[in-house]
């Protein structure tokens, strides 16, 4: 488990008042006088938002410690269900069976797209639904077939626990095959750096993670941008969920409340996701 989990623990100790607490006082006031720890793990698409929220909360009230780990949506749901963590994030809606077995309560606080990415040096910038399926199934295996250079395509995919993979597989590949030759990476961040490094690679990543190091590919003529996801034009989209076992209480409830507050939703759009409110 440790080998897999990229621990992104944030421990901000000290009274660094970089973010003026007065300006944000309204939403953060809920944390006044609180004390304790919140353990969060799961979906890696959530990390930028949750990390920023945790930073602001811990700056406002240093007596609260929030630890954030990755692992993937499957890990998030499983660990929160087993009571190992307080909040389990998932980039897909937990299945009915999971909800029933663990008595999960879900909170959707953002909408995210899953974009196809290639290396910035790659001249291929758009793919049809058919082409995408064939590339990931390994039927198209040279960039020349797509109008690129005469080089074999390296397909990157995510592990079984990934919600990003579940959504991409369902909505972009229509539950089609993924070639057994595909390389596996274990987080959205790892996918981005793998594609940024490999000139002939192709993969998929949460829209919030797309930046200059990778080039986003238009899918069926629609670019994976925040705007298109918001308008519903870009179809490979999903909700970002935070799940708790039973009704959340204490700090977990306040943490989720903060993500759903206007300030939390501001962080959501700042980090490249679509707010739900």
């Amino acid at each position, binding site marked *: *488990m440790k*080998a*897999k989990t990229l621990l992104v623990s944030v421990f901000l100790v000290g009274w660094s008042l970089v973010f003026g607490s007065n300006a944000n006082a309204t939403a953060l006031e809920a944390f006044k006088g609180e004390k304790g720890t919140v353990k969060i793990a799961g979906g890696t698409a959530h990390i930028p938002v949750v990390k920023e929220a945790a930073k602001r909360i811990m700056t406002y009230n240093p007596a609260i410690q929030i630890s954030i780990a990755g*692992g*993937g949506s*499957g*890990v998030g749901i*499983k660990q929160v269900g087993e009571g190992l963590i307080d909040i389990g994030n998932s980039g897909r809606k937990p299945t009915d069976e*999971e909800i029933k077995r663990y008595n999960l309560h879900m909170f959707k606080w953002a909408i995210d797209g899953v974009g196809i990415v290639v290396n910035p040096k790659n001249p291929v910038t758009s793919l049809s639904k058919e082409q995408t399926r064939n590339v990931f199934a390994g039927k198209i295996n040279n960039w020349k077939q797509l109008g690129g250079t005469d*080089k*074999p395509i*390296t397909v*990157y995919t995510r*592990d*079984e*626990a990934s919600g990003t993979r579940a959504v991409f597989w369902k909505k972009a590949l229509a539950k089609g*095959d993924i070639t*057994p*030759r*595909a*390389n*596996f*990476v*274990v987080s959205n961040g790892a996918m981005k750096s*793998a594609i940024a*490094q*490999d000139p*002939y*690679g192709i993969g998929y990543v949460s829209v919030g993670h797309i930046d200059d190091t990778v080039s986003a590919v238009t899918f069926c003529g629609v670019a994976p941008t925040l705007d298109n996801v918001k308008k519903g034009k870009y179809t490979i989209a999903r909700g970002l969920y935070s799940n708790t076992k039973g009704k959340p209480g204490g700090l977990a409830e306040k943490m989720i409340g903060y993500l759903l507050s206007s300030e939390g939703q501001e962080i959501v759009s700042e980090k490249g996701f679509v707010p739900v409110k």
Partner: protein
Amino acid sequence: MIKIHEKLIEKVLLLSASVSASLTILILGFMIVLGLPLLTGGLFFDLLTQPWSPRQELYGIYPMVMGTLAIAFLGVLFACPLSLGCASLISVLGPRPVSLFLKRIVQFMTGVPTVIYGFVGVFLLVPFIRELFQAGSGMCVLSASLMLAVLVSPTMILFFSDSFNQVPASYLNAVDALGGSRVQKLLYIVLPCAWRGILTGLVLGTGRALGDTLIALMIAGNAVQAPGSVLDSARTLTSHIALVIAADYESLEFKSIFACGIVLYMFTTLAVIGIRAFNPSDRKTTL
């Protein structure tokens, strides 16, 4: 008084020894019990030969077994000449300050965490291999086994050089008396006398290479296919366990990783039996 003390200490030590010994056996028992649904009905052998394709309800671990063997043995193959040369320099050929310095470095290397090697592999070795061969992503069997060679060689070097040092001094003096050179000493006396130690070191290195997770997970690419060439991406049993462990507890995917555990356990057991077989002198002292 002293006798009671001694008895007490003896009992405490016996307790800790039996706890640690029984742990190993308990782990095997645990894996067999949890893997029992797979073991009964011959499903276990199906698993060993089938491909991995959860969508078609095939949970075979054949690609991972082949990936593990390919990466581990290639790694030891690369590490072997490196370690032999290094150990020879440390124990026989090198001048004292050089060999002492080298030995310190090698001892230090045994303590470097594998994740560091993984990082070096991702950022230096993988792009290099990709550009050199112009095929695939660079995340392949070759990259992983090269990095694994760096990981296992310190263990092998220290083991080799220890066994070189155990060659009786009278033999070495005899070579000196006959006017033999250092190279002759190494080739005709030290290597033939220390062959058991060399074999044991090799088996030990193989065991370590089979069990390593992070290097293969980070730079072998983790594709679920039996590698056809050294430039193919592959997945080891250990990284397979790490990648699948997040799946649903009730699913067959999850249950199948117990088969991985049992196979890995068997590999390691074979390695240990190998060490015992090659080292009868060691057995005499322990029994």
